[in-house]
């Protein structure tokens, strides 16, 4: 089961509002604390789009600088998280497009075709049940999904974002987000069945 968060609206955090107000006056340390609180989610958003941790970190850095320079345009300080995540996602998508066009121009494999770096196996008991071979097969299948299905699927995978936030990031309705996630899982499962991985144990 994917770990997308529940759909309750995010409550205004007075600390975030205070830090945004300080950062608007030019307080770098306040902006650093704002970034630090959301850095993990931002890096995962960028990683979902780019697939490579180094590229994702560069996109997050670009997005953070853009957020710093545009902080005056943020109308609701309490909505800093969603605003920052949208900037991160846009920067990651821009980077993905530019990488794809560069690879297309010079004939190398595109970013989507590069081998995925799968983190080491989780020591958790449920993860130990899955073989390394099956994990790699699933990872390759997910990477091979169409981007329209893969993006919401990976954004929802870690549970950082609600479906509404994913819908805002992708600029699509919430129902479409849910359908695409379900479709991505269904397509991956069907391919695994054809590859003979019907039983994951």
């Amino acid at each position, binding site marked *: 089961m994917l770990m997308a968060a529940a759909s309750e609206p995010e409550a205004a955090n007075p600390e975030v509002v205070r830090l945004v107000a300080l950062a608007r006056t030019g307080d*770098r340390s306040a902006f650093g604390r704002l*970034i630090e609180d959301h850095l993990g989610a931002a890096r995962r958003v960028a990683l*979902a789009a780019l697939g490579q941790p180094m590229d994702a970190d560069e996109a997050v850095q670009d997005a953070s*600088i853009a957020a710093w*320079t545009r902080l005056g345009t943020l109308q609701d300080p309490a909505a800093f998280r969603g605003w920052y995540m949208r900037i991160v996602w846009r920067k990651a998508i821009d980077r993905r497009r530019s990488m794809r066009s560069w690879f297309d121009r010079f004939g190398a494999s595109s970013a989507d075709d590069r081998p995925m770096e*799968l983190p080491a196996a989780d020591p958790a008991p449920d993860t130990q049940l899955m073989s390394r071979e099956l994990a790699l097969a*699933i990872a390759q299948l997910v990477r091979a999904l169409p981007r329209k299905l893969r993006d919401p699927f990976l954004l929802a*995978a*870690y549970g950082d974002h609600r479906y509404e936030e994913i819908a805002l990031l992708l600029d699509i309705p919430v129902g479409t987000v849910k359908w695409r996630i379900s479709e991505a899982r269904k397509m991956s499962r069907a391919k695994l069945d054809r590859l003979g991985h019907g039983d994951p144990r």
Partner: protein
Amino acid sequence: MNTNRDLLDDAIDQVASRMTRVDDDAAMAARIVAALPERVSWFGWMVHAWVPRLAMIAMVATASLLWARREAPIDPAPAPVPPIAAAAPVTPVTAPMPLAAENAALNRTTPLEPLEPLEPMEPARADFERSLVAVAALGPLDVESLIPDVLPAEASIAIAPLALTDLPLSAEFPVERD
């Protein structure tokens, strides 16, 4: 079957979650803060963002205005007057007219004042006193003075005899070449 399917779904979700897992990087926030550029105020940002655009718009608007209000090209400047001619006293032939008024008169396409309708000319009211003087009647030709019998006899015509010589053949003439 359902158990296998659920396990497969769980496996897919676990792998997807691991695909978006990032290692902790405590120094990343510090690196980002160190790389932040100097912050400009909102007014400064507006100025930096809009001044080039406003300048471009102003240039285009000015060029359009000048183009719309352009005048016909003025006659080229007269040739420089030689010193001798310049030193000579100049007597104005006509009354001096300001250049602008002169150009306006040249370029005028509509009358400055509404034209008064012309009065129809009536033949009965023609002003014969100020018209051309009537041509006098021609005198009769004296045809009798031209009759041959009347001509004086002493004024006979003498024709000298023609002297014909042998003409050379055309082939003997030298041909002139260009």
